[in-house]
Structures are given as structure tokens and as C-alpha cells.
């Protein structure tokens, strides 16, 4: 039962991935990508990791996809039409690169040996039994119920260095974004008036168009 559900969703996920790559319209490609992210969340649920599924949806669909769409909208043709055309050579090169990455990852996963405490995934036949929790090892039930705590513990002990490096990377990106976006000067329209050095004393006494034209610095007033 669970196998067939897994296969069904994997097939849908592969279709979504193909759609992402083959779609001509950039926004549609992003939509296919959203569908693919959702299928990943479904796979997490099938693995009894609903915490990770929720995180997946929250981070990838709620944040990454939205930012991606914003990026497309702000930098490309506004409706995102037919913007993914590339020459055959480019397609071939990137296709080869993708296959090479797949080969590297597949080799690494298949040749996983494992340690005495944690056997290789290919040695594990089924899901860990609920009652068979060893000392110091959380049972399956505890892990599912307190997955937030389990993930936090693992991040702070076993995976602390990758976690910190990722945090550093994000901080650098954040600081860079702030540095790019920060403008000297205020954002209120009235401040621009002040910044321009305009005071009542500079203004012509009667405020008529003629007076404006005579005012110092009036290069091209609309009345002329």
C-alpha cells in the first residue's frame, strides 16, 4: 500500500521536475517547481517526518518560491513569456552537467558503508520497531512526537558545523542584501523637499509662474 503511494507520488514528482526543466515560460517553470517541492513534502510525510514536511512547505513554497517569482517579475519581461529559450549546445552542456551530478550523487549514496552505530541504509530492512528503543536512542514514537526537539538536538551536536556554516552564509547574504538596498536619505516625500534645501525664503514672493522662472536654479519649469 505505502509502496504504491510512494511510487505514485514519485511519478508525479518526476513529471513536475520535467515540467520545471522543459517549460518555456519562466513563471510556469516556477509553478512546476512549487509542485515538485510539494511532492518532496509528501515524501517526508510518507517517511513519518511530518515536521520536516511542514518545514519543507514553509521554507520552499512559502518563502523560496515566492522570492523566486518576485525575482522573475522584477528582472524579466513582466509576464515572463518565452524567456527560457536556449540554444541546443547550451541545452546539451547543461544536460550533461546534470547527468554528471546525478551520477556523482548516485555513486555516493549507493556506496554508503555506515558505521557500527549507524548501519548503512541498504542494510536496514524496515522501519525501526517502536518498542525496540535502545538506551540513549529515541524510539520511533518519541522521534515522531518530538521531531522538532530531535532535529534541534542533532543540529546542535552532530551537525553543528554544517549548521553554523549555513548560518554564516545566510548572515552574509542578509548583510549583503541590506548593504545593496540601503539608501542614504529618508524615504518620506517631504524629506526630499528638505534635502533639496527648499525653504520658504527661497520661494518667490508671489509664487506666480513668472516668479518661478526667475527663481535661481529653475532650469526647465513646466510653464515654459
Amino acid at each position, binding site marked *: 500500500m505505502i509502496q504504491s503511494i510512494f511510487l505514485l507520488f514519485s511519478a508525479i514528482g518526476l513529471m513536475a521536475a520535467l515540467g520545471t526543466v522543459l517549460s518555456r515560460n519562466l513563471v510556469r517553470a516556477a509553478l512546476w517547481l512549487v509542485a515538485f517541492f510539494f511532492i518532496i513534502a509528501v515524501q517526508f510525510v510518507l517517511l513519518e517526518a511530518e515536521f520536516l514536511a*511542514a518545514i519543507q*512547505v514553509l521554507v520552499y513554497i512559502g518563502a523560496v518560491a515566492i522570492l523566486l517569482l518576485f525575482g522573475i517579475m522584477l528582472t524579466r519581461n513582466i509576464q515572463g513569456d518565452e524567456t527560457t529559450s536556449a540554444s541546443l549546445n547550451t541545452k546539451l552542456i547543461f544536460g550533461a552537467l546534470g547527468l554528471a551530478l546525478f551520477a556523482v550523487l548516485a555513486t555516493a549514496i549507493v556506496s554508503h558503508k555506515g558505521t557500527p552505530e549507524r548501519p548503512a541504509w541498504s542494510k536496514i530492512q524496515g522501519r525501526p520497531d517502536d518498542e525496540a528503543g535502545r538506551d540513549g536512542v529515541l524510539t520511533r514514537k518519541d522521534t515522531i512526537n518530538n521531531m*522538532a526537539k530531535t532535529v534541534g538536538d542533532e543540529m546542535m551536536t552532530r551537525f553543528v558545523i554544517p549548521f553554523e556554516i549555513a548560518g554564516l552564509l545566510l548572515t552574509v547574504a542578509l548583510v549583503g542584501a541590506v548593504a545593496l538596498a540601503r539608501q542614504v536619505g529618508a*524615504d518620506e516625500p517631504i524629506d526630499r523637499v528638505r534635502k533639496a534645501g527648499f525653504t*520658504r525664503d527661497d520661494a518667490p514672493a508671489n509664487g506666480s*509662474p513668472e516668479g*518661478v522662472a526667475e527663481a535661481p536654479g529653475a532650469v526647465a*519649469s513646466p*510653464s515654459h
Partner: protein
Amino acid sequence: MTDWACATLLFAQEIAPREIPWLAWFLWLLIGFFGIFPGVVAYMVWAERKVAARFQDRIGPNRVGPLGLLQPIADALKLITKEDIVPDAADPIVHLLAPVIILVSSFLVLAVIPFGVGLAPVNLPSGLLYLIAVSSFSALGVFLAGWSSRNKYALLGGMRAVAQLVSYEVPQVLSTIPVILFTGSLSLVSMVDRQYEFGWFVFSPPGFLAFVVMTIASIAEVNRTPFDLPEAESEIIAGYHTEYSGMRFGLFFLAEYLSVFAVSCLGTVLFLGGGLLPFPLNRLAEWMGTGDWPAIVVNIGMVSVFSIKVLGYVFLMFWVRVTLPRMRVDRMMNFAWKYLVPLSIGNIVIAAVWFEMVLRDPIKRMAQVEITGDEYIPPGIGVGLKGWIVTGALVIALFLTVLRVNRGSHASKIKEITESPIPLPSEAPALFARAR
């Protein structure tokens, strides 16, 4: 997975028999998600029109049925029978998909709300996270609605709306962190449970601040006045749903009111104790243990209390809507990032202080009591009082600091501007020339 959820005490008891879960599911889907929730939404529209009319010294809907009670049905019939116009240039699939995504996201939020004892459709161990995740779908739906219409106003309105939704999601999520801290769990059922043991979370200074921040952010998340820029008529010809008509527009409408209902339920569960009364009812759990009928009676009472709280929350939203004017778009974004986000981040620290001073010791002792079986002695009133004084002072200091930092940098400028005369419109050309 449901029966593994970390419920304790009152909520550990099940009402629906375990043997026929499909019946419970069937009932939830049929009665709750197809019957009660859409009905609630339909009559919320009627209630809003009546309430707004009272505020504005009018009568409101009164033609269709007694007191206008059949008005929602007439509106629904009108929307369904209207012609469904899809622009020629629109992307047909995405145009159809967008309102559906928004509606589905509003419905999915309701799936983890505990309405009573054992009356949560699903009790996920990470329910709050699930809730935040599914509610973030609505931003995607809004964006797709704006994009697929092939209308520049719809697209601009959609981007504005998404910017607002993303911004206000941050304080909304941050203000739920104190509740997670107090509970030590992400399950909404455990949150109600903890409030059964220690009183409503709103009755503590950090809890109160988080409640206020969350209410404001929720009003912005569901696009209601004073934050209704995404869909107000005067802002970019109504924004992302410009090109929608008939029942497709009706779906946006339905989703909005459903979201209002959902955030009211969420606020009630997180801060107002769900279906609990303000004072602890320690006898309730013992009495409930004696059979099915007491459980049903208790649940009827709890659902009633829950409904009253949700109605009050919804009424608060109506009240805000008819009282406050709409905000300008840049002020609205400033308000989210410069006021709400610092307040909610600082509030997390204050919540930790409150947890250390008031909650940590009783929670530990309560866990010991469950093991040893001794009688649980609640902490004296002095502990709570001390916590109130310290965290109350901290909350006030935080509030004043945020005000000071935001206003202080502008204070001299504001003074200068308000005291010097404003340039006349006829002086504008000189102004532009100088600015150039």
C-alpha cells in the same frame, strides 16, 4: 499518528471511538468542512453588514427574509449564476487554480484547530508549524491570480499584496513563539492543555503583547481594514482579482472570510484558552472520566465558550474595520518591519524570563507528581505577582524603546517640518528644479 500526539490530562481522553476512525473523518468532512464552516462564512458576511450598518447608523440588509437573514443565500445564488468571464489572454489553468489554492489554504488551516476535548480534526505533533505552512500558500495564490490575468493592474496589485502578506507573516509567526515556549510543544492540543493547567496565556505581560501583535498581524494577513490595500477599490482598481467574476470571485470572497474565521480560531486557541473558562476547572477531568455522557455535555459547553470567544474576536475585526481609515502603503510596510517585528523579537526574550520565573518550576513538579502520584501543590500567588512586576516592566520598557527608536530619529525632523510652512502647490516647479 493521531493517538501518539503528546496530549496530557484532559485532552488525553478520546470521544470518537478508536475503532471507526473513518466515521469520525466522514463526519468532520461532511458536517464541518462542507456544512458548518461555509455556513459560518456566509453568515459572517451578513453579520459584518449588520454590524457595519449599526456603526454607521443604517439598518443594513433587511429585504431578503426576516432581518435580511436570507441575504447570504441570495448573494451566493447571484454569484453562481453570474457569467464566468475569463480574459482571452489569461492563462486558463493558472487562472482557475489561483482562487482554489487560496480557498484550500484557508480550509487546511482549520484542520488542526481543537474545538473541544478530542474535537480536533487532526492532532498533529507539529500542528502549529503545519498551520503556518499551509497558510503561506495563500501568498502564492494571490500572486498567481495577479499573474495569470494578463492585466498590469492585477499584476501590480498582486505583487503589492504578496509583499504585504510576506511582511506581516513575520510578526505573526514570531508572536506565536512565546506560546511554543510556554507549552514546550508544537501541538495545538497541548497548548490548550497547558492553558488548562496554568490559565490563559493572554494573562501574562509577554502573552498579552504577543496577543496584540498577533491580532494586528492577523488583520493584515486576511486583508482587512486598515490593511486592506490588496483588495480595496481605490487601490489599483481592486488589485489581484480585477479580472475575476462570478463564482471565481466568490471563491476569493469565501476564502477571505474563512481566513478571518480561521485566524480568530487560532487566536482563541493560542491565547484565549480555546474552549476553557478563565478559571481552572480541576474537577472537570475527574468528572469526565466517568462516562460518555459527561464528556458530551462538557464538550457542548466548551464548544459554546469557544464560539463566543471566536465571535468576540470576529466582532473586534469588524469594529476595527468600521473605525479606522486605510493606511498608506509605505506606512503599512514600515509599521510591520519597524514596530511589529522588533516588538515580537524582544517579546520572545521577555517570554523566556516569564517562563523561568513563573512556569518552569510548576511544570517540573507537575511532571514529578504524575510519576510519584503525590498531590500537586500549586505555586503561591507571590511567584506570579513577582513575574508580573518584572515582565510587565520589561514589556513597557520594550514598547517605549521601540517607539523611541522609531520616532526619535524623526522627532527633530518632524518638529522642523511641522513648524516651518508647507510649500504652496504653485511653488512646485521651483521645488522640482531645485531637487534636480
